[in-house]
């Protein structure tokens, strides 16, 4: 039953850091008793689309604000292209931030908002004009240049905020929950748009988000944060396929988690030994968890697989079907994603099998 030995999960060549642009080294920050950042170290490459992903309170916003200069870390260093950033006041950092609330100046028109940052660089008027026009063209707002922010829709405001940030041609653009204020449809559009823009303008993007789908669909690499610590840094596929620990496994995508013990060769649970394709843990004794993705599970006739159970629910999802299977001895029903419409009904006896499953540290919930 036990298949491959523990596989190593290094970032693949495509997602490996290129020339480092932003180097965050051992950054910690506490607010009284609350530790927001606990020794965070990250390296973000030139031209990368990087995401800081985590639940609220994981420290991602504090990290972003530290890079922009609105928070001072208690310890650690942040360097941009080799130069220390922490010694510079916010207005002298070559970093622009797109605020979650957009923070557009309500008393200025769209073009004045966008020109504001360039005017601070004391550029000639003609150049300011030209660059503002260009960037408004890029984000598709040229026609609305004279409007006030209050006269724009949410999506348009977001474009203004983006234009205002990229017109400065920063080396690094920080985006704080850039899509959270938009409704579903606009959000999907803007996801593509952000990706296209990042490609077009060649600026390094660092996006903070709590939405794993958003991070997965846009970012080249993702750092998953929890409790002020980096849990894993990897590309989207890597994070999903090879979660480093139980937190990442539970946070990214849907998974079936089975608690048990890993002795180095086999995984023992309350329902017997289960097949494992990869083990991401060092010590053998403590509690561990098996992560099985719903789409990796095959449904067969009773007795043919590794776990027998009864179908509890069948939900048609359009492209496929979600099947919940109650397995005696497991607390939660096993979730299985099947393409198409399987000939299954509530109460059918089935058997489950899989080839891909990862063992991670942690004892489940």
């Amino acid at each position: 039953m036990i298949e491959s030995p523990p596989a190593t999960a290094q970032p693949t060549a495509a997602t490996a850091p290129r020339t480092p642009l932003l180097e965050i080294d051992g950054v910690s920050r506490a607010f009284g008793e609350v530790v927001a950042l606990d020794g965070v170290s990250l390296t973000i490459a030139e031209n990368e689309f990087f995401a800081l992903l985590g639940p609220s309170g994981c420290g991602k916003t504090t990290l972003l604000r530290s890079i922009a200069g609105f928070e001072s870390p208690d310890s650690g260093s942040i360097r941009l292209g080799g130069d220390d950033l922490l010694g510079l006041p916010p207005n002298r950092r070559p970093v622009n931030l797109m605020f979650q609330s957009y923070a557009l100046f309500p008393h200025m028109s769209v073009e004045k908002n966008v020109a504001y940052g360039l005017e601070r660089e004391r550029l000639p008027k003609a150049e300011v004009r030209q660059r503002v026009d260009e960037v408004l063209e890029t984000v598709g707002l040229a026609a609305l240049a004279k409007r006030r922010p209050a006269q724009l829709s949410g999506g348009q405001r977001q474009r203004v905020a983006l234009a205002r940030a990229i017109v400065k041609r920063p080396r690094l653009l920080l985006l704080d929950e850039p899509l959270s204020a938009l409704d579903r449809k606009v959000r999907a559009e803007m996801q593509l748009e952000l990706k296209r823009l990042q490609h077009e303008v060649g600026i390094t993007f660092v996006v903070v988000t709590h939405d794993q789908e958003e991070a997965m669909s846009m970012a080249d690499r993702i750092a998953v944060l929890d409790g002020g610590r980096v849990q894993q840094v990897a590309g989207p596929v890597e994070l999903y396929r090879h979660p480093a620990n139980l937190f990442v496994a539970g946070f990214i995508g849907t998974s079936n988690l089975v608690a048990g013990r890993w002795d180095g060769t086999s995984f023992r649970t309350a329902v017997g030994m289960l097949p494992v394709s990869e083990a991401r843990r060092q010590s053998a004794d403590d509690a561990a968890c098996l992560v099985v993705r719903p789409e990796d599970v095959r449904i067969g006739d009773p007795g043919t697989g590794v776990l027998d159970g009864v179908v509890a629910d069948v939900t048609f999802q359009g492209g496929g079907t979600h099947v919940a299977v109650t397995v005696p001895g497991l607390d939660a029903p096993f979730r299985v994603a099947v393409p198409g419409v399987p000939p299954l009904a509530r109460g059918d006896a089935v058997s489950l099998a899989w080839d891909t499953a990862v063992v991670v540290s942690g004892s489940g919930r």
Partner: protein
Amino acid sequence: MTNQPAPAGRVPRRVPAGATTDRRRLLLARLASRREAFVLLTPGLLFYAFLVACPVGLVLAYSVATRGRFGGVEWGLDLSNYSRALEPLYLEVLRSSVGIALLATFVALLIGYPTAYAISRLPGRWRTVALVLVVVPFWTNFLIRMYAWIVLLNSQGLVNDALHGLGIIDERVGLLYTDGAVVVGLVYVYLPLMILPIYAAIERLDRELLEASANLGASRLRTFWSVQLPLTLPGVMTGCILVFVPSLGNFVVPELLGGGKTVMVGNLIRDQFLRAQDWPFGSVLAMVVVVALLGLFLVQAVVTRRIEGPARHG
């Protein structure tokens, strides 16, 4: 207007019957909420009707009446009082009153804005303490506080003592009974009315806008001039009006701290009513002040609207 079909006739043809009922329900709901608003406004409207509109109407009526031979008034429509108000003597009083009130407003602004800003930066509970302290002087009688200033400012007073003791002046100077003393008194009395609206405006200001300004490369000074000040300008204007209006009409401060040498329009109006028994002319002067203030409020409304921008459409 006349050749357009009535909306009621158009509706059923275009939308199904259910929608009409919905629309009617919506209209009824809107009417109900309008009625509710009206009910809630009633006390305020009554207050305005009896305590603002009536007195002003009365003053207006007096202002076109004629002074009675033996006191009192003879009703009529006599505009000669208005032309009398334009005589240089009275214009000069008006001008100097406006000057003193403007100066007091300006000084109050210079003190009030930094104070309000500092209070907004205090940690939560200290903010409340500071705001209470701003209002505390109102707990003491106005006249007592004015007499306190007389004690402070007179040539044997504490201010002279201090200046003399520090060697800044050799001879004691007459600080009291000057225009300066009047300005000091007005600033002192009305400063809280400057601080509170500015504080409210700064509190309401989204801090992220200031951060955004810094993030775009603006220095703190630039952020103040380009973002903070324009966005708190409505509060500044409210504060200025709240200080300017009562300063212009005040007659106790010029009397006590100005020693009667400084005649402001407030004193003039009071004298017309109480000493000269010329109610029509007093009313004219009062109307001039009222109209000037209405103009001011209009300016404030326009500026506020410009800053906050036109309403969102669609």
